[in-house]
């Protein structure tokens, strides 16, 4: 391929998919975070049958392929009269899926806090709301941050599955270009762009960890 075509046609075209990839990632991550928080809360505070339902939801979305979930929402739900455009369908599927994972991240972060922390706060006379707001959540969020950023980075890559139902994101655009030029090395360009998005995101995780680290925490682990 001539360098000119590559620089002027192929790369700009593929880069045109980046905003869609980022939007899809951001929206499904946010949906997953909201859903995950609710599911984690329901699993911790809820009674039967709510906890059983939540557990079922989490097991279902973690135990079936994301691709199947995307197909189900895009091709399956119209049979029930529920229709989404490809972008919305992909966003919902990835968000619902991520919600299951984020629920588990948040739940295990909360469960990882020693019981004495809760009891100490209770013994001081704090209300349950105050205990969660001032004692449990600030610690749980710090514990959960690396895993949440991990999840965010994973979603950047999962959004490529949306190409299959026709969302014009980064990978869909790559495939157009490959079939148009018959040059499979274009996949490398696409991979490089994903890398350029994901590596800084992982760096962000390290920055956040240092920024919000509990002083002395690392030393305490050693």
């Amino acid at each position, binding site marked *: 391929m001539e360098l000119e075509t590559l620089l002027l046609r192929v790369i700009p075209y593929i880069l045109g998919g980046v905003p869609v990839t980022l939007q899809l990632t951001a929206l499904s991550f946010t949906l997953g975070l909201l859903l995950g928080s609710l599911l984690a809360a329901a699993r911790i505070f809820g009674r039967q049958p709510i906890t059983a339902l939540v557990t079922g939801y989490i097991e279902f979305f973690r135990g079936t392929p994301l691709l199947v979930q995307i197909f189900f929402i895009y091709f399956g739900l119209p049979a029930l009269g529920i229709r989404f455009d490809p972008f919305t369908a992909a966003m919902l599927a990835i968000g619902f899926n991520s919600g299951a994972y984020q629920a588990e991240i948040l739940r295990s972060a909360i469960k990882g806090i020693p019981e*004495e922390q809760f009891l*100490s706060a209770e*013994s*001081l*006379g704090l209300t349950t709301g105050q205990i969660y707001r001032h004692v449990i959540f600030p610690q749980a969020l710090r514990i959960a941050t690396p895993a949440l950023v991990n999840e965010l980075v994973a979603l950047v890559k999962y959004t490529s599955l949306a190409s299959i139902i026709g969302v014009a994101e980064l990978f869909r655009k790559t495939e157009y270009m490959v079939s148009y030029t018959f040059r499979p090395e274009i996949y490398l360009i696409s991979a490089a762009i994903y890398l350029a998005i994901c590596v800084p995101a992982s760096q962000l995780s390290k920055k956040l960890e240092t920024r919000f680290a509990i*002083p002395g*925490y690392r030393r305490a682990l050693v």
Partner: protein
Amino acid sequence: MGSPLLEVRGLKAGYGKQEVLRGVDLRVNRGEKVVVIGPSGSGKSTLLKCIPHLVKPLAGEIVFDGKQVGDGPAALRETRSKIGFVFQHYTLFPHMTLLRNVAMPLQLVKGLPRHDAELIAAEALARLGLKDLAPKYPLELSGGQQQRGAIARAMAIDPSLLLLDEPTSALDPELRNEVLETLYGIAREGRSMIIVTHEIDFAEAAADRVVFIDNGLIVEEGDARQVLERPRGERTERFLRRLKSVV
């Protein structure tokens, strides 16, 4: 005998099917220092946690300062704010400085403005020799300093009763002493205390009364010297002998 500050009657508690306390009666008078001893799993820690309902009793009643403990959440929080509680470990909140650890409950529970709460907190820390450590975070401190910080936080609310659940058990021997020194100081102030501990020397020197619990029941109680030196019960004697041979 002074007036009773705390009266526990027929207390039963357990986790699931396991019965941990099988009917405990305990009376603590104002200014009295009671040490609770007993083998691990005997229910002594549960007894302490039941007093401010950190563990919900299954039966029996707890009367603190003339009021039944556990009559509604607001009254329960009110009671808790008059009882200081120090756990074996993980008591301080690691994401706050020592000063904030002590000041936060004063703000949230007593409704003090931040400035006033931090003044009182700084004073409470200074009293226990922790003034310089106020801006430090708990995990930057030694285990002994953390435990003294936890005691300072419990003391800052000026509790009528201080409950300590094995405050030295998680510490290295050389750190135990600094915590024990602190506890001797508090004991001399005449505050009512219940301490679950294996520190027999401390019990002998600082306690008015010793209670021996085994298998969920109070087996023996009485004057500290008498119980520790001339226990009446065979089980008490065996327990003390084992404890002394370890130390």
